[in-house]
């Protein structure tokens, strides 16, 4: 655990917390991108170039933009007077704590079960490509199919209804 890790971890967690706690919705979205960037840097810190850059490209370049557009196109950026906490916040808290504890348990277990890697595995983009189109081609194709159907669905939703002038 290098000091860089701690800096990045603090950055990521601060971004995440700011995304939850800030009042202005657009500020929240921007804070979320900080968290995304921190995650990407964590990946890069682990020498996972492909995942790190893909994280930036997809999450900062596309998802954050999508979030921001969704905020702008739906309603104002101001927080409603009644507050943003839903009435069932306690249930949400329980679910979140449950998910967190399961994940933490799994991580801690796996650290004991898996053998410690002797050397840092050097995974090139080429290896990832071969793995994606070789061993994991079926999941890839399923994801592609899902995305295609989602795109078609979006087009259908956005299409003009028949019989009405454009």
């Amino acid at each position, binding site marked *: 655990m290098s000091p860089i890790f701690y800096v990045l971890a603090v950055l990521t967690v601060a971004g995440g917390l700011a995304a939850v706690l800030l009042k202005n919705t657009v500020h929240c979205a*921007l804070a979320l991108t900080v968290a995304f960037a921190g995650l990407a840097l964590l990946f890069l810190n682990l020498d996972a170039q*492909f995942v790190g850059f893909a994280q930036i490209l997809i999450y900062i370049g596309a998802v954050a*933009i999508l979030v921001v557009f969704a905020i702008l196109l739906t309603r104002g950026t101001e927080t409603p007077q009644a507050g943003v906490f839903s009435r069932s916040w306690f249930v949400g808290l329980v679910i979140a704590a449950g998910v967190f504890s399961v994940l933490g348990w799994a991580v801690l277990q796996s650290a004991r079960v898996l053998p410690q890697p002797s050397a840092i595995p050097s995974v090139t983009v080429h290896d990832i490509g071969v793995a994606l189109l070789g061993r994991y081609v079926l999941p890839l194709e399923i994801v592609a199919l899902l995305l295609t159907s989602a795109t078609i669905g979006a087009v259908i939703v956005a299409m003009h209804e028949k019989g009405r002038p454009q």
Partner: protein
Amino acid sequence: MLAAPVSTHSVPVIVDQAFVLFKDWLVSFLPPSWRPAAGVVLCVIAIVCVFPGLFALTTVFERKGLGRMQNRYGPNRVGPYGFFQPVADGIKSLTKEDVVPLNADVVVHFLAPLTLVVTVFMGFAVLPMGRNMVLANLDAGLLFFFSMSAATELSVFMAGWSSRNKYSLLGAMRAVAQMISYEVPLLLTTVAVVMIAGSLSLPKIVAAQSGYTGVFPHWYIFTPWGLASFLVFAIAATAETNRSPFDLPEGESEIVAGYHTEYSGFKFALFFLGEYLAMFSISGIGVTLFLGGWSAPLSFLNVVPSWFWFFSKVMVSIFVFIWMRGTLPRLRQDQLMNFAWKFVLPFTLLNLGVTALWRFMGEGWARWVVSSVILVGVYVFMGRVGMFKKHFGPRSYRYAE
């Protein structure tokens, strides 16, 4: 590809590697443990000095060139032939008052130009600017470049949103919509190159194009799929950098200056710098992907050092940017979107298929004929179909009559 004779290093190493050797010489004064970091710092300093310098030169050449295209002289007052114009402009923007609107979101307003310039500068890290002249030889360099250019979109949005100005916000929405729409074909054209070169590393892509047949280079632009990719890339790159004819986000006639309406003084200068740096970096990536990077255009021209070729190719493409700006009128928003999604994207997807065909048809003339026929045929067909429904003539107004 035909058998590629290995290019001869006819250029003296001392010239070709002048900058690399100079860096090594400077670094050699330091203790060995410091050397790698110092080398990186030197490269960063070089990039941060060279490209803004090129930006200053480009602004004056652009204004003079545009002037010539409109049959006038262009700026010729400051210094000999007006070449000190950028100095005057720089002093002006540095000393100008920095106005921040009262209702603006001050922090975001301040951060937007900074993040823009920083992310644009990051892109230069992976560009091979000459033989052995690349700051970070990343395995996924191409991905890094495009992830950085994707991050600029957010700063454009930040600028537009934080200004609390309807023109700023409209400009930002236009800019982001346009950049997202054209990013898809941009990335897909580079995928075609990656399919053939088999690597995301930019130096490897340059190396894959460095052969010569006779005197002619093996650049990807000289293949049917490469030419098609390059044309789509050029269109998408123009849109991505908000240059004319895709400069709707800054359409003065409609939305003042778009997302940087409320910026003045040095922050505006940063936006200006960011726009031109984005132009340089996207030209650099285009040169690297399709025009053989730093390799000489003809085999016997290898006597000229590699960095010269890289920078001249970049400047030629900058000239084409300026030339287009001097020629083409601005598009309308619906034309822009229709063009991206209904013409460029399908054509790019088809081009990907053609590239795969090229890859698997093997050597020989057959793949040249087949892929050329497919690409040209589809281009003509799509052009005709696209034109078929267009009613040219006096414009009709639905509501305003």
